[in-house]
């Protein structure tokens, strides 16, 4: 046979056994491309785009949903075969473990909900472009890879895939100056932070001689670290800190969240955060477990700053998307608290909180989307939310539920998430941090309540608009409500799942 082909054959030999590890990714990316091309040939349509309609996506939405569903199935399959599949693939680029699988599932669910919400939204806003769905799925692929990557090179690639996709989505409604402005800001700062990230990786690489997280962990070892290594650590922290919007690397998020289409904002607030956080956690737990004493104080400070700046700033926001942006900053702070605990319990809380946070935030954004009207997302709390609860009892109730969940009132996912984080912090002896988190939460209660107040105790300004909630969005809402309640009322199973998922992530530490 042709010796020319030998390298390729070797390559395939090397790749073949690993394919199982990336089935979900493969499925989703295939369907994303399918969604992209399907409508180029205007499959299944007899008419061209109507006047004022931009593009015509008939198949794309359903193809993408199908893709994500299949992805979920694949993830479940992976989860079930975890005992045999667990391990690292592609020369240690990809790792399959509970943590990765769990969070990939979370991300896919998030994506699914986003898509369900998006369909109605796009129809309303007349942006029926297949690209849109393609971009969502591609960023989702980036996220999935990011969660599962076990190597800085891979992390970098995945991170960029995710980010660039989101940059574009932010500016997708390009007729609006605001959208472009948001995209520009996100893009410039994103690229800027990428620079730091890469440089940090370079330094780490130089001092440990490897990009592989595990190997790096060995090389880093414990005890004293050279300043330059710490510099590398710091720069990488900054890189992730930007993606998850930790103060002071958060400045972009309010503007961007406000600029992006509401569904995408939800997508960013959940998917991007989850993925970046996952990578950060994996990086810290695997590579820098030995130097925990070095990053804990930094994260401690960042956590406090993030919680307070986020919550305090949110208080005077009238635009609900912007408010939720600040609130998601604050929640990033809570998540960091879980990381600071640096214990198995902490990681479990971290994972659980990410799941809970995804449900409640996406739910909130689903409502925001549902309340918008064509050409006007009507996101002003004082103007658009007055008395909503009586025009749309179900939407109102759902929103109230999400707000209380975000506040942390039982029996909701948000409450138990906070509870778990508190537990972790106290367990790790960070009582002070826990108390600070309490005060932050109290501040947050104030602005979450504002929404409830407006919906239930306020009167509509001017002519109240009734909106029609598309079926898909209804499904999404039901899903999120159920999720929030399920995680809240019977957290037991989920907690066990979370604990199991983080079992391998970090060495030692007794549970609960």
């Amino acid at each position, binding site marked *: 046979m042709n010796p020319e082909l030998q390298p390729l054959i070797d390559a395939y030999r090397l790749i073949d056994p690993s394919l199982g590890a990336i089935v979900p990714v493969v499925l989703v990316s295939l369907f994303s491309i399918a969604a992209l091309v399907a409508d180029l040939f205007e499959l299944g349509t007899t008419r061209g785009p109507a006047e004022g309609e931009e593009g015509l996506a008939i198949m794309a939405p359903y193809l993408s949903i199908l893709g994500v569903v299949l992805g979920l199935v694949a993830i479940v399959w992976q989860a079930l075969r975890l005992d045999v599949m667990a391990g690292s693939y592609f020369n240690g680029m990809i790792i399959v473990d509970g943590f990765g699988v769990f969070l990939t599932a979370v991300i896919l669910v998030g994506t699914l909900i986003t898509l369900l919400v998006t369909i109605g939204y796009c129809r309303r806003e007349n942006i029926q472009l297949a690209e849109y769905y393609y971009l969502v799925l591609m960023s989702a692929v980036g996220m999935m890879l990011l969660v599962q990557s076990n190597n800085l090179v891979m992390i*970098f690639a995945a991170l960029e895939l995710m980010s660039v996709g989101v940059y574009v989505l932010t500016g997708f409604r390009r007729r609006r*100056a605001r959208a472009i402005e948001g995209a*520009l800001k996100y893009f410039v700062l994103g690229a800027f932070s990428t620079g730091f990230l890469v440089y940090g990786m370079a330094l780490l690489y130089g001092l440990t001689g*490897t*990009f592989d997280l595990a190997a790096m962990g060995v090389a880093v070892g414990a005890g004293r670290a050279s300043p330059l290594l710490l510099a590398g650590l710091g720069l990488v922290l900054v890189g992730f800190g930007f993606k998850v919007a930790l103060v002071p690397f958060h400045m972009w998020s309010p503007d961007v969240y406000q600029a992006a289409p509401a569904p995408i904002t939800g997508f960013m607030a959940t998917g991007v955060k989850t993925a970046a956080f996952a990578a950060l956690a994996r990086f810290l737990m695997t590579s820098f477990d030995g130097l925990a004493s070095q990053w804990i104080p930094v994260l401690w400070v960042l956590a406090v700053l993030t919680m307070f700046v986020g919550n305090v700033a949110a208080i005077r926001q009238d635009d609900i998307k912007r408010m939720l942006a600040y609130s998601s900053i604050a929640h990033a702070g809570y998540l960091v608290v879980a990381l600071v605990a640096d214990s198995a319990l902490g990681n479990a809380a971290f994972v659980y909180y990410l799941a809970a946070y995804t449900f409640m935030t996406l739910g909130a954004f689903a409502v925001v989307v549902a309340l918008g009207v064509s050409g006007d997302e009507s996101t002003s709390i004082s103007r658009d939310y007055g008395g909503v609860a009586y025009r749309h009892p179900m939407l109102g109730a759902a929103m109230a539920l999400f707000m209380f969940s975000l506040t942390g009132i039982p029996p909701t996912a948000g409450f138990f998430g906070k509870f778990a984080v508190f537990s972790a912090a106290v367990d790790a002896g960070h009582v002070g941090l826990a108390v600070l988190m309490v005060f932050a939460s109290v501040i947050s209660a104030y602005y979450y309540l504002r929404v409830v107040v407006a919906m239930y105790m306020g009167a509509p300004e001017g002519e109240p608009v009734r909106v029609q909630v598309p079926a898909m969005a209804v499904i999404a809402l039901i899903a999120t409500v159920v999720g929030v309640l399920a995680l809240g009322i019977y957290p037991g199973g989920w907690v066990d799942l979370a604990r199991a998922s983080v079992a391998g992530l970090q060495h030692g530490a007794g549970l609960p």
Partner: protein
Amino acid sequence: MVGPAHYITLSAVLFTIGVIGVLTRKNAIIVFMAIEIMLNAANLALVTFAMTIGDVAGLIMVLLVIAVAAAEAAVGLAIIVAMFRHRETVNIEAFNVLRG
């Protein structure tokens, strides 16, 4: 005798120059160029380390960085074009509607 330290130092200098560029220039395009400088500084560091360590990973990383730079350039410039369509300028400060 020039050693890795010199290269890294140089990369640090270039990186800093890039940063300062980003912070000071108002022309979106040039800000963008400054970012490219940063990336290249990182590349220099990577290559240096890779060659001194004798590990190809660093070089691969450089390759990826360059590719990413290209991708970002595409998207970034697209955004700049769109931005110009709206404001007839590429002054980054012309965009501050979103704030607070």
